[in-house]
């Protein structure tokens, strides 16, 4: 399956970006093929509002079934949940480290937004 991880850079050694809506980008990792690709998220920088929603859309459109990030706001969470995506927050370290944690089942799924969102 495909998992999306918020990233501050383009490779698996990049640090996890703690933000979701305005993350630099996402690494979509395919756990079956072990391939990964980078999707840039920076067009969201200047959006007047709704960055979390656009980020959620990007993740869903990329076919991810799970999202791993630092923090996730309420609108983004709602969007992801509606699309059936599992959300894991509180991640840190590098993208590679987080993938390993996910594979070994040591990450816990979040039941709700863990930050109040950036109100526009």
């Amino acid at each position: 399956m495909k998992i999306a991880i918020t990233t501050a850079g383009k490779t698996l050694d990049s640090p996890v970006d703690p933000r979701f809506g305005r993350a630099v980008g996402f690494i979509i990792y395919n756990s079956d093929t072990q391939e990964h690709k980078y999707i840039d998220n920076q067009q969201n920088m200047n959006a007047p509002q709704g960055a979390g929603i656009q980020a959620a859309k990007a993740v869903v459109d990329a076919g991810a079934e799970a999202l791993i990030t630092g923090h996730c706001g309420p609108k983004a969470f709602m969007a992801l949940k509606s699309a059936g995506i599992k959300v894991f927050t509180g991640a840190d370290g590098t993208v590679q480290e987080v993938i390993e944690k996910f594979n070994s089942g040591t990450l816990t799924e979040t039941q709700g937004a863990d930050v109040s969102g950036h109100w526009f």
Partner: protein
Amino acid sequence: MKEVVVVSGKGGTGKTSIVASFAFLAERKVMADCDVDAADLHLILHPKIRYCEAFFCGKVARIETEKCTGCGKCRDLCRFDAISEKYIVDTIDCEGCGVCYYACPENAVVLEEKKSGEWFISDTDYGPMVHAKLGIAEENSGKLVSLVRLQARRLAEEQNLDLVIIDGAPGIGCPVIASITGADLVLAVTEPTMSGLHDLKRVVELAEHFRIKTMICVNKYDINHEIKQDIVDFCEQKKILFAGQIPYDNVVTKAQIAGVSVVEYSRAQVSMEIERIWKQIFYTLSVEATVRS
């Protein structure tokens, strides 16, 4: 790392003067001026700008007159009356929604990124400061406020500082919401007037809505002892900590004219009280930190 936001509901209660004093009293913090519409904190903290970035928020439409045939579709559909009879877009009224762009059969409309302000990272004698300037007549959606807060948090993390002190905006709209969501503590500064109490209640309701711990202090309390007591009663009723009462003293204006914070300018009762209030804020935040860990 903790965030404390100072708000007022009503404007002119003395928020910024008090925040400037906190800048002097607090150690190891980043100051953030989130009153981006009418920022004043810099007049006391005298920031030296180290970094400046343009702020873009949304879009604005522009009609290329050579391509325009005057069919009027855009004017019919624009819900903000932003397009004149001569097919010129009023940039103040334009909401950047793009309806005209999608409707135009001649592709004569261009949707452009709009620079709506600037934000700055600065050094001051009191530590680092993040502030911003919203362009005149621009939409104060809260996005710039959120950006200032984000940058302040980043700076605090980078420099291993424990605290962000935020000068919030008046009112209860977008910018205030953006200033307070996710903060650890709100200090509402009010004045003992009917308007002050009325507006205080609204801003407290807002803080409650976002489940943020709140404290209240009264500035210029000796203007009206009765209403000051009403405010104390309100705090008791709501189980909100009444952090203190600052007397009216024109030393506040003198300090402002001298360009320094009140607590630096004078040891009058005003300063003593502001210090007392600061200590309570500091204590409350530290206790929470200890409890959490």
